[in-house]
């Protein structure tokens, strides 16, 4: 069966510090991968999606970036965090466009 992992589960970072969140999927090959952010009391916002290694599409201009160095690994990064980057970050995978998306456990990021 397929599983999706995210780490860390929680993170507290000072403003201006770098960020690296990792997402890995097991039990599938060449999945579509997604990064979402959920600010407090708001809906999910799609940040990035990837249909293959090295292929990243950005949905929202921001100080974040994403990379997919391996088939089942998706990384969200920032060189300098802003207060507004605080939120709940979710990674999701999808076997193909005709299947539902499956979400990971999320990372709670607090920028102070």
């Amino acid at each position, binding site marked *: 069966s397929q599983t999706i992992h995210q780490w860390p589960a929680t993170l507290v970072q000072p403003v201006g510090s770098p960020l690296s969140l990792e997402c890995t999927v097991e039990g599938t090959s060449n999945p579509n991968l997604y990064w979402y952010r959920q600010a407090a*009391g708001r809906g999910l916002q799609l940040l990035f999606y990837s249909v293959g290694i090295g292929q990243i599409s950005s949905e929202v201009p921001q100080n974040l970036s994403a990379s997919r160095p391996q088939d089942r690994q998706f990384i969200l990064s920032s060189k300098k965090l802003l207060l507004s980057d605080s939120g709940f970050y979710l990674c999701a995978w999808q076997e193909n466009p005709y299947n539902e998306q499956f979400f990971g456990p999320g990372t709670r990021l607090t920028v102070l």
Partner: protein
Amino acid sequence: LAKTTQPISMDSYEGQEVNITCSHNNIATNDYITWYQQFPSQGPRFIIQGYKTKVTNEVASLFIPADRKSSTLSLPRVSLSDTAVYYCLVGLRYGGSQGNLIFGKGTKLSVKP
């Protein structure tokens, strides 16, 4: 993607049937209606998807009228564990080629004993 409107919150009691309605007046011909459930500090979980009329699975039923401008998620005999936020999404099936899902603020369902 079509915009959706749903109530911000709903209250219910254990054992009751809960119906959450979503309006999507600008739904396109190729659009499907999908509902997700999200518990606090967890990622959303797919509940049900439909195109027209009625769809039922082991968790819920989805009613879609002929004009498809609205839909109703029906949860039979809710329990305390059904307390969650429910999102209605309209778009290509499961999000289309990029899988883009546009989540609104959802409906916060609170089930009381």
